[in-house]
């Protein structure tokens, strides 16, 4: 079973991602705060984390840096309604392979599923992306 951690303070985004990715057979854990994400990652390994760039308190960029250090094998996809893939912090993360992909809100669930599938299949190659942005 592939464990995916979804970190988004919008509960309904987590709900949609859980349904879409659950249908693909993944095991989804959702949290709405960065601190909770770090606690989950400390507790057990995840194959993939989908992290919202914008989180209340600790930012998604900070969270992904911490959980990436806690579990360097875990792949991270960023999601945002604010940033575009071309934005500097996202570009920087992709270049450094901290992020394996980027989802722009709003998104097509099929494309998110496809991105997740692709990222999971990847070995340390180039990152993937989806979304309308």
């Amino acid at each position, binding site marked *: 079973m592939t464990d995916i951690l979804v970190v988004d303070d*919008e509960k*309904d*985004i987590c*709900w*949609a*991602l859980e*349904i*879409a990715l659950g249908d693909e057979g993944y095991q989804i854990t959702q949290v709405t705060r960065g601190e909770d994400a770090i606690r989950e990652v400390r507790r057990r390994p995840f194959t993939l984390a989908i992290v919202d*760039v*914008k*989180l*209340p*308190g*600790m*930012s998604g960029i*900070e969270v992904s840096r911490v959980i990436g250090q806690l579990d360097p094998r875990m792949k991270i996809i960023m999601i*945002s*309604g*604010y940033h575009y893939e071309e934005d500097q912090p996202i570009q920087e993360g992709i270049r450094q392979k901290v992020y394996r992909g980027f989802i722009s*809100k*709003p*998104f*097509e*669930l*099929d494309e998110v599923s496809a991105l997740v599938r692709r990222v999971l299949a990847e070995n340390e190659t180039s990152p993937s992306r989806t979304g309308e942005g």
Partner: protein
Amino acid sequence: MDILSSIPSSIVIFDSSLRVVFANRNFLVKSRKGEGEVLGKKIGEIFPPVILYYTNLEENLQAAQKGRPLDGEEMEYRAPGLASRVYFYSLTPLKDESGRVRNVMLFMDDVTEKKSLGERVARAERHLASVVESANDLIVSMNAHGAVMTWNSAAERILGFSAPDTVGRQFVQLFPDAERANLEGLFAQLIRRGEPQERESSMRAKGGQELLIAWRFSAMKEERGQVVALVGVGRDLTEKRQLELRLIQSAKMAALGEMAGGIAHEIRNPLAITSSAAQILLKKGADPELRCEAAQKIHVAAGRAATIIENLLRFARPSEGLVERVDLNSAVEDTLSLIGHQISLQSIEIKKRLAPQAPRVKGNKNQLQQVFMNIILNAYHAMPDGGGFTITMRAVPTDLQAAEQLPRAELLESAGHLASNPQSAIGNQQWVVEVRFSDTGCGISEENLSRIFDPFFTTMPVGSGTGLGLSIAYSIVRQHGGSIRVESQVGKGSTFIVSLPALSAVPACASPHADRPSTAQAGAQADRANGKLTTDN
């Protein structure tokens, strides 16, 4: 005849044939004639024909001869080679013992100096009047009872009422009902203390349009210090206010530009939810539970997006300066709905400690939101690496606010129980609603603190701020009769404190000083209300 010679007026006596029988020295000097040139001459020979023509002196002399005296007329007489002089003259029949008119005395008094003094006074009066008339400001004088005495042409032009419309009427009758009592109090104070009084009042012009006039009233006193008249000088602020509104609007647009990214994000989140839920509905709509859930989420998210857009439009709309009862809680909430997420994006944690039952304030919600927006944007710029941002609201009596004697918990208790009281003040105690915005940002240096509300003052790089936000916040708050102040420590953060006069006050039983049994209960209720309705983040 010696007396007549030394009199400083001219005297000429005519006999019944209207010939001169006597002319005193004064006349001879003034007319530059010798006695021989005058005596025995007819009037036409000693006065220039022009004077005779204009004064009818000859006919009047004949009339006087028949017993009809002439009481007093003015005539201008220029002796050859001298400046013209003005005389006041009279003709007096001189009768003998039998009562018959024998001679007629022409008495001429030189009033040239007196007349020119009078003319100077009249000219000075005309000059002053034309100053008053050409003033752009309204200038009104009233008697000590407040009845209009004079009304200048600026007052006619600006308010549309003519002088005859207003002279004799009570000046305060020209003001809205609510303002009359204030003005009457102000005039009473003016008469009592004599110090000029200033007041901005709205007035309705004859045509119906509302004008804002800044008045300065002063007392006119006679020698003994008794007030005999009141003078009001008024300046029409309508145009200035309109310019201010335009400036406020452009600064608002600049603020909106800064917020655009955050607002886009605010809308893209519910859009993402709507879109995802619709996709789930399409794919898995057969599941009744999921169908219901998805439809609900679509409904809620669409409503959320609509609210954001509504708030955005309401904020962007030019403020017309309308005054209403404003709930500052909702003004803060609506502002945060536009900008709150942009702030938390920058890892700034927002805490709200609102006071839902705090009294309303009188003002313009749109403008007050702009005040909050500008303060929040300032905090946002002060915390580029994140931090904490706390908004605290409370209602507090003005004297208590000044003294800050009581712990805040107690104040919040009293603040919680206010709204239902319709009275404006208890025992003259004035209340304010205070909103504190505290950030944990870079703080403001002492040097900059004094300039923080200056227009165009900014510490931000060129292009990232107009430097108008806080100065506009300041002028809006001042226009609302409130105050705005900052406390700051470099490296620790800043607190902006906005205080606005409350429309209602706290019932006596909930006053922090009251010790009746009901106090505890009221306090407890208020506490519960606060606990329930105050939200953290």
